[in-house]
Every structure is written in structure tokens, then in C-alpha cells.
């Protein structure tokens, strides 16, 4: 074995012995450090996975959704608009969509009612999202009544509950027949809530949007990439809010870590003096302490990160879920597929491992450059 490697192994060996000699101090530091990494990693992993999931869900959504605006408010689109849109070059597929919100006073929650044309739902039947199943205790075959905005009571039979895997997008969804939908919301025939468009060439999406605005000045095209950006910024904002709430805890840790790592006890100073007196160089002492800092911070990072992984992807992040998912009454209840990117890990490591290791090294360097003769006078 090369002497340099053997020397590093000796230094690591000494470091481990040194850590075990101050078990209580180092274990408490490791625990608090791992806790901080756990919190930060949970927030980062959760928002990262949410972003990824939203991206995956929206990947199948139309490139453009067109809404009609009257006096700055969203209004119904008459059938004639679909014909005009069909004449615009580049538009591949046009579909008028029917959807609306319904407030359920029983559970004080908003549902999204939709009439999907591609699904063949019988009249008087509905398909509900998993959150509705939970909040109203519904199962296939059950009946449920909703009072419409005109005061009429409409009763439906639950034909199916949507699978939990789709819950991020379908938690509060109620799917029904088009005729039922129009009857419930009193939608006139030939009118739609908005129009979904597919564009043949993805490079042309913006051009098509401009053409739509020129052809239909009272319309507002919403691009899929804009929706994705909005989702991303919402998750960023929530992540930031979460971190702001945790800032006090993070600051407390930094002060504690600095104090624990930087404040050398008289015993530690004496030990450094002894090592120097018996032939260790300043560099050897610093390397030994570097290993100490690295072992503590890497162990804490690994522990905290693995705990956060389990917390987010196996237990559904119960600690931060309400803040990170949203403020709706019906929380989507779904488990995120694990998704980690290298940048997230590198960022977390940079903001946890590097500051701690530096905090350890600075005071050691100051202590290690002092003359070893002080140990003779101890």
C-alpha cells in the first residue's frame, strides 16, 4: 500500500477513535444535522417530484386551450368559434370542452365537473375522483345528489371511481354525460367552456396562438408551456414559503453547528498540541480534522437524505404535505413516483456538507499553527 494511502487510513482510524471518544457531543450533533438535512431534503424531493409529476400529467394535455373573455371574465364559447378556428393553418384537432366548478356545502369543497366527449358515460351516471370517494364515502353503485345553481336536485349513480394513480389531476373530478352536464349548469346547446387545440408542428404553437388572437380578438389562448411554468412557479413559491418557515430552525442549527464544530475545547487544543509535539505536521492535524468533519457531515447527509426519501416516497410526506400540495379542502391523496435529480442532491450537499466542513477546519487550522511547546507547559 502506498504510504500516502496508508497515512490517510491511519488518519481516518484516529478520527473514528476520536469521534467515539466524544460520543455524546458527536451523536447529538449528528442527530440535529441529519434532522436539518431531512427537512431540507424532504422539501426539495417533494417539490421536485411534484414538478416532475405535473410535467408528466400535462404532457398529454392540449398544446393550446382557448377561452373567450367578456369584460375580462371567462365566458362560454359559441359553436361558430370552432369553425373559425378550424380555418387557421396549423391547427390539427379542435375539441370544445365542457367543465365547471361546483361547491359542495356538505364537505365545504369545490369539485370540478366535466363532460369528456371521448368517454361514453351513460345518462344519470358519474365517474368520481378518489378524493370524492374519500370525502363523501362513495363507492361504485352508490347514489349522490347535487343541488344545481338553479336550486334543482340532480341525482346520479357512481359508475366508477378513478384510480389513485391519476389523483394529482383527478382528485376532485366528477365526470358525467354531456346532456347531464348541460342540464345541471343550464349550458345552451352548441356552447362550450373552452376549446382544446392540437397543433401539428410544436414549433408553430406560438404562431398559431397569435393567429387565434388576431382571428378571435375576444379570446385568450393558454399554452401548455405556460401552464407548466405556472405550476413550476407555484411549487417554487410553496417550496420557498416552506423554507422561509423553516429559516429559524435552519439558523438555529447553523449557530449550534458552528458552536459545536468551531469551539475547540481545552482538551481538543491539548490533543492537537500533543500530536504536533510527537511529530504530526500542521497539515496532518488539518487532514485528520477534515476527515472528522467529512465523516460527520456525510453521515448526517446520508441519514437525513435517506430518511427524507422514505418520508416523501414511502409515507407521502405527511409533515409537509398540506403546505406543499395546496390549500384545497380536498387534498389529493397520492404517492409520488420517486424522482431525484443530481442537481437537487448536489445543491443539498453543497449547502450542508461544505459549510460544516469549513466550520470545522477554520478553528483547527488556527489551533494547529500554534507552537507545540505549549503542551510542555500543560
Amino acid at each position, binding site marked *: *500500500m*502506498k*504510504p*500516502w*494511502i*496508508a*497515512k490517510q487510513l*491511519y*488518519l481516518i482510524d*484516529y478520527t473514528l*477513535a*476520536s469521534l*467515539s*471518544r466524544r460520543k455524546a457531543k458527536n451523536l447529538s450533533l449528528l442527530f440535529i444535522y441529519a434532522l436539518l438535512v431531512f427537512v431540507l431534503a424532504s422539501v426539495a424531493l417533494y417539490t421536485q417530484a411534484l414538478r416532475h409529476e405535473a410535467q408528466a400529467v400535462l404532457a398529454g394535455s392540449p398544446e393550446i386551450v382557448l377561452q373567450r373573455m367578456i369584460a375580462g371574465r371567462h365566458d362560454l364559447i359559441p359553436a361558430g368559434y370552432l369553425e373559425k378556428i378550424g380555418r387557421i393553418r396549423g391547427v390539427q384537432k379542435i375539441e370544445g370542452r365542457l367543465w365547471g366548478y361546483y361547491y359542495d356545502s356538505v364537505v365545504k369543497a369545490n369539485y370540478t365537473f366535466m363532460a369528456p366527449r371521448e368517454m361514453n358515460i351513460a345518462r344519470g351516471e358519474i365517474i368520481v375522483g378518489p378524493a370524492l370517494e374519500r370525502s363523501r364515502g362513495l363507492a361504485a353503485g352508490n347514489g349522490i345528489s347535487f343541488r344545481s345553481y338553479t336550486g334543482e336536485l340532480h341525482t346520479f349513480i357512481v359508475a366508477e371511481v378513478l384510480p389513485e394513480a391519476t389523483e394529482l389531476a383527478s382528485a376532485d373530478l366528477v365526470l358525467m354525460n354531456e346532456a347531464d352536464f348541460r342540464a345541471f349548469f343550464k349550458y345552451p346547446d352548441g356552447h362550450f367552456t373552452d376549446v382544446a387545440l392540437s397543433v401539428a408542428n410544436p414549433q408553430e404553437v406560438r404562431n398559431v396562438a397569435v393567429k387565434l388572437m388576431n382571428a378571435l380578438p375576444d379570446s385568450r389562448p393558454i399554452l401548455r408551456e405556460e401552464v407548466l411554468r405556472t405550476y413550476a412557479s407555484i411549487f417554487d413559491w410553496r417550496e420557498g414559503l416552506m423554507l422561509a418557515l423553516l429559516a429559524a430552525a435552519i439558523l438555529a442549527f447553523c449557530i449550534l453547528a458552528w458552536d459545536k464544530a468551531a469551539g475547540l475545547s481545552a482538551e481538543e487544543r*491539548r*490533543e492537537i498540541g*500533543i*500530536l*504536533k*509535539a*510527537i*511529530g*504530526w*505536521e*500542521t*497539515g*496532518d492535524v488539518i487532514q485528520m480534522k477534515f476527515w472528522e468533519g467529512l465523516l460527520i457531515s456525510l453521515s448526517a447527509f446520508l441519514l437525513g437524505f435517506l430518511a427524507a426519501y422514505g418520508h416523501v416516497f414511502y409515507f407521502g410526506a405527511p409533515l409537509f404535505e398540506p403546505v406543499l400540495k395546496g390549500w384545497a379542502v380536498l387534498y389529493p391523496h397520492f404517492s409520488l413516483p420517486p424522482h431525484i435529480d443530481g442537481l437537487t442532491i448536489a445543491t443539498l450537499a453543497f449547502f450542508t456538507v461544505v459549510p460544516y466542513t469549513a466550520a470545522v477546519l477554520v478553528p483547527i487550522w488556527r489551533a494547529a*499553527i500554534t*507552537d*507545540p*511547546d505549549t*503542551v*510542555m*507547559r*500543560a
Partner: protein
Amino acid sequence: MIELKNIRKVFNQGQHNEFWALCGIDLAIPEQQVTALRGPSGSGKTTLLTILGCLARPTEGRVRLKGEDISGLPERFLTEIRRQTFGFVFQQFNLIRGLSAIENIILPAYPLGLPRKHLLEKAEALLADVALAHRREAKVEWLSGGEQQRVAICRALINDPEILIADEPTANLDTKLATEFLGILERLAAQGRTIILTSHDPLVVESSVVDCVVTLRDGRIVDQTEGRPASAERFC
């Protein structure tokens, strides 16, 4: 082997509590002999020992080791000299608590990166020499004062130093253990090592093991005599 020329050492220079610990010391430490530095507390014994052992630098004056001037060498080179040439036995032993006797002994050799097996064999041989082989795995805080000192001696010898430096080696030992220490010292001297120690214990400075006694007072050498009947080869 070591020559000191006009060595002065001042602490807190330029401050109201400035203190001259050594005031112009000229001294030659002969090779393969036992030299004892004695004097009352505050006479400068330990300060002189730290300069001889390259643990501290003089404020003024020159230190020559085997003919080479080492006074102006940077700390890195001094550490190397310290590791290769000197072994230290401190008054309080300065062993690292929590480590076993054998781990303490091989500690000075860590920076050299020598094979562990080789180091352990060497440490075991040293422990056997001081009749402490059975305590090799004992944590040093569990050892008696005499045992701790023997571990400290083994640690000082692990890198095969030419010069052994001991500061008040018998200060924490009773007469029986002090006598045992002198026995070890005699064996080391017989191996041809140069030994420098400070002591005001008559048992040490008046023993036949010591070749030369240097007496200090107020930072100056006031007397320099042979400690035992001089043989033809020994000088002071």
C-alpha cells in the same frame, strides 16, 4: 550533537509583562550521553528543553543540530526533524485518553504511513522491553502512573529517535517507580541514545546514569559538571 550559541528567549516581548526566560545560553549536548538540566522552578529548564527539542524557537541565537544550523527553518522542516530525531517524554505523559497503550505508541508514526503490521510488531517489542506487553490493549486512563510513563517512553521510541527528551520524568512517580525509570534510562543509554532530561530530583541528577549535569538559574547556566565518575570516552 546539539550546539546552542547565545540563546535568548523572551515571552510577551514589548509588553508590560515581558519576561526573559533564557539569557544567552551557550551549550553543547554531547552525543550518546545523558545530560540533565536542573535548577529551581522558573530557572528556564523547560524552555531550554523545548528549544533543544525543536518544539519552540529561540528569540535570538543559533541552534545547530549535527553541525547544521536549524534556527531559521520553517515549521514544516522542524516537524520533520522532530519526528526523525527526537522522542519526547512529557512530565504529564500527555497520552491520548480513550486510546489503548499500543495505539498511543504507534501514533507518532501515523504520518509516515508505514505498514500497520510493522508498527504493531515494533510497539509490541517496545512494550515487552518495559515489561508492559500484557497491558497493550488497556486504555491509557486505566494504567497506573508508572505504566503510563512506560507507555510514554515507548511512544517516544517508536520512530527510533537518536535523542530522547524527558521533562521532569520522575516528578509524578514514587521512589520505587523512579528507580525503575532510571533502570530503563540506563538501558537506553547503553543502546547509544542521546538523552536530555530536566529534573530537580536528586535521585535522577545524582544517579550514575547521568553523564553531565547543567545547572540553570534565572535563565543562565551557572554550573556544568559531570554527573558520575567520568570515563575516558565521556565528556561534558
